[in-house]
């Protein structure tokens, strides 16, 4: 039966079936017929992490640039949404120590506009960072983006009339439905996928494979690196904006550069050249991080307190996983391939012959 399924027409039907099942599940969750708020929140967070991880993969996995700035770009997007979507009437209650900048205090934007603005601002910042750094060998990009992530947090903590400093901004209007998160996620992944599979995407991959050869084939390294970096930042900003409305509040401590490690783990786990791998890994890691919380609580087994389990253990396990992945499984789940029905069917085909011999062997 597996072989019968392995032709083009049937694959399209399978894809449609999958999409329908997925849509039904989301609708059921969204209208609260199944699941609870905790599950919904994890799924929404996974959708957001998908957007940011795929944007990071565009830059790191497909173009070969080592950028560690996603947390910073998320912060830009998050704060843009936070600053502009809180209803004007509420602003004074939030900016109660130092009043909000008078220009900003009059502007309230609809969510979509603020979201896109956040993405654009993040892209602008990326271009500003990229201009000096990307003209050279990309080694320094890691330090520059890591530094930027730190600095943005410092700036946001200090620019009190704009960002309310360490107090953060709350009362951000929440989203009415899960479809906002999943819709934007689907759209973002689609757009990035389209970009990767266009001529420009191929140019990015050429830069990753061999910069010298790419340049020799007429590709302007600087222009394309900045392009990739800016697009990556744009979507990270979008992810940040959604994050702000999911949590309904932002503060500088949420965007400590260590947040970037989550996305790094996701893209290494999924495969640094695979979009579908990243999507799968995003859901696995986001839920995994929740499951791992169990490591942070004291554990008693058969009445004995296991001393290892206390706060902080979760992150040790997490960072050990990252190290194990990069040392032993650096291609992750899918490497540079995309998930396809062919891959799944091949998995089944590999298992079939073994089962047959088992049956034959035990027939005594």
């Amino acid at each position, binding site marked *: 039966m597996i072989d019968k399924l392995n032709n083009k027409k049937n694959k399209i039907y399978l894809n449609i079936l999958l999409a329908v099942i997925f849509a039904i599940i989301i609708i059921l969750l969204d209208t609260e017929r199944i699941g609870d708020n905790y599950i919904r929140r994890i799924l929404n967070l996974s959708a957001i992490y998908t957007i940011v991880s795929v944007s990071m993969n565009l830059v790191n996995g497909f173009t070969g640039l080592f950028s560690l700035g996603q947390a910073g770009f998320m912060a830009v997007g998050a704060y843009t949404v936070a600053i502009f979507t809180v209803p004007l009437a509420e602003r004074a209650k939030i900016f109660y120590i130092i009043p909000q900048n008078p220009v900003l205090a009059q502007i309230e934007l609809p969510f979509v506009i603020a979201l896109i603005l956040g993405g654009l601002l993040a892209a602008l910042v990326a271009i500003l960072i990229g201009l000096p750094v990307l003209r050279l060998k990309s080694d320094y990009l890691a330090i520059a983006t890591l530094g930027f992530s730190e600095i943005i947090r410092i700036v946001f903590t200090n620019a009190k009339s704009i960002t309310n400093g360490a107090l953060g901004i709350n009362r951000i209007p929440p989203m009415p439905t899960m479809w906002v998160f999943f819709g934007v996620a689907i759209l973002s992944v689609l757009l990035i996928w*389209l970009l990767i599979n*266009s*001529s420009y995407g191929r*140019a990015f991959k050429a830069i990753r*494979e061999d910069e010298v050869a790419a*340049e020799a*084939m*007429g*590709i302007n390294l600087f222009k394309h690196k900045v392009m990739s970096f800016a697009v990556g930042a744009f979507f990270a900003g979008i992810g940040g904006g959604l994050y702000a409305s999911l949590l309904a509040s932002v503060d500088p401590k949420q965007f400590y550069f260590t947040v970037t490690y989550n996305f790094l783990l996701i893209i290494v786990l999924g495969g640094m050249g695979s979009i579908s791998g990243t999507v799968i890994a995003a859901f696995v890691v986001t839920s995994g991080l929740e499951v791992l919380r169990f490591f942070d609580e004291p554990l008693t087994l058969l009445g004995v307190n296991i001393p290892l389990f206390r706060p902080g253990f979760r992150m040790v396990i997490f960072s050990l996983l990252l190290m194990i992945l990069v040392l032993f499984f650096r291609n992750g789940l899918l490497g540079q391939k995309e998930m396809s029905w062919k891959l799944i069917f091949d998995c089944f085909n590999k298992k079939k012959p073994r089962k047959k011999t088992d049956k034959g062997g035990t027939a005594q």
Partner: protein
Amino acid sequence: MSILQINNVTMQFGGVTAVNNLNIEVQEGKIEALIGPNGAGKTTAFNIITGVYSPTKGNVIYKGENITGLTPDKITKKGIARTFQNIRLFKNLTVLDNILIANHLRINSGFLSCTLRLPWSNREERHMLEKSEMLLDKLGLLGLKNEIAHSLPYGEQRRLEIARALATDAKLLLLDEPAAGMNREEFNFLQDIILNVKQQGITILLVEHTMELVEAVVDHCVVLNYGQKLTEGPFCDCESDPRVIEAYLGKEEAEC
């Protein structure tokens, strides 16, 4: 009509002079060879022409325009393309992708048009695809178009590199030891390709150690030694010049 002139070019790396006061002129539509023992400065000359190095002194004129010091991508856009001594294909990408990438420099659509699959960029993509497949067909690689580049046998990889350089719509092709390591069959095919390219009016500058190829296809030779031009002329003149023989073989064995 000369398509390329290298005028008084000197290249110094710290204390080492790789190329010393080099003067070369390449005639349009002809096949020119740059020969000489290892370390004579041939690949350095290539790197200077293609913009990888900026010469310490001198200039490079292409079609009357001074291209000295331009970045490699700009030089390729002007019509000069090259292959590499140690093959530098995009190893993990398919054969077809390698060729398509070489088409990218001529693209008119911006990245937004391409991403949103707007009609004119779809047209360009189709056109690039057709062009690339035709080129692959001409070089006998069409059947391998979906293979990963590093899985190809050596001879086919070298051929792919040449195809990739041609895909940039180059008018001047720089081939760095294209025949290295080829067997008889691959060699004959290479010879046909080179002559075919010449027929299309593309000028070729060749660095090569396999004298059989040089003898078969080349119109004019320049011999380098220790970064300087030793002599130049038609192949048979160069081949029999005692100084050239001495450069390759050393003084004692100059008797032959």
